[in-house]
């Protein structure tokens, strides 16, 4: 479960962060000491998805979207009223956002 963020991030203990390049377009960061996932990062951008479970204050969180629903196994379903995107739809939305960023930054 991730929370999208655009922009700068300040880390403490950065030497403990492991990064795994999971695909051509993304990397997954985790704590090397305990395995906790920290964020997914769109390579070459300022776009991050921070692990909701790692946040200190989760009181304001709202579950609004599920992505890669075409890969979801059948054995669980969320009851929340979410926008459901396939993997292709999610990646297109992400690419669209990145292109807007490029255009803005010139």
């Amino acid at each position, binding site marked *: 479960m991730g929370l999208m963020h655009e922009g700068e991030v300040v880390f403490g203990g950065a030497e403990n962060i*492991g990064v*795994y390049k*999971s695909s051509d377009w993304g990397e997954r960061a985790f704590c090397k000491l305990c*395995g906790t*996932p920290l964020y997914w990062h769109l390579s070459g951008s300022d776009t991050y998805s921070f692990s909701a479970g790692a946040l200190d204050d989760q009181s304001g969180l709202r579950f609004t979207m599920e992505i890669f629903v075409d890969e979801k196994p059948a054995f669980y379903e969320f009851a929340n009223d979410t926008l459901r995107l396939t993997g292709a739809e999610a990646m297109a939305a992400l690419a669209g956002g990145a292109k807007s960023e490029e255009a803005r930054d010139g």
Partner: protein
Amino acid sequence: MADEREASGHCLCGAVRFTATLVSHDVQVCHCGMCRRWTGGPLMFVDVDGAPAFEGREAIGIYRSSEVGERGFCTRCGSILFWKVAGEERYTMAAGSLDDASRLALKTEIFIEDKPGFYDFSNATKKVVGSEAMGAYISGSGETN
């Protein structure tokens, strides 16, 4: 005749692979704060009969998260692999690490008292508080995992 409880799995990068005999195809979900911080959402797991057989053991990191629990993950890619009883060969494997999810069924939610309000499963599940859930793994345990 192949035992339907035989399962295999691996981490995202493939450094760690395992085979295991599942107790059943019932999936439990843990909502406790430790599991949610550790995985990013609730931890979905299955109970294992005996210990799994691992390949790539050298890539497994173990974090002793409490008096009673140890958490195993891949040190190369961060994938969550298992929660086990500290000092015992009593494992539960992360449901997402299994190669075949087709027979899995979500049956139980544990540490239901710790679940945050922003998500819910629609599955018909048994809901159990932490102390009752931990009793299945550690006799006399009242808390922490």
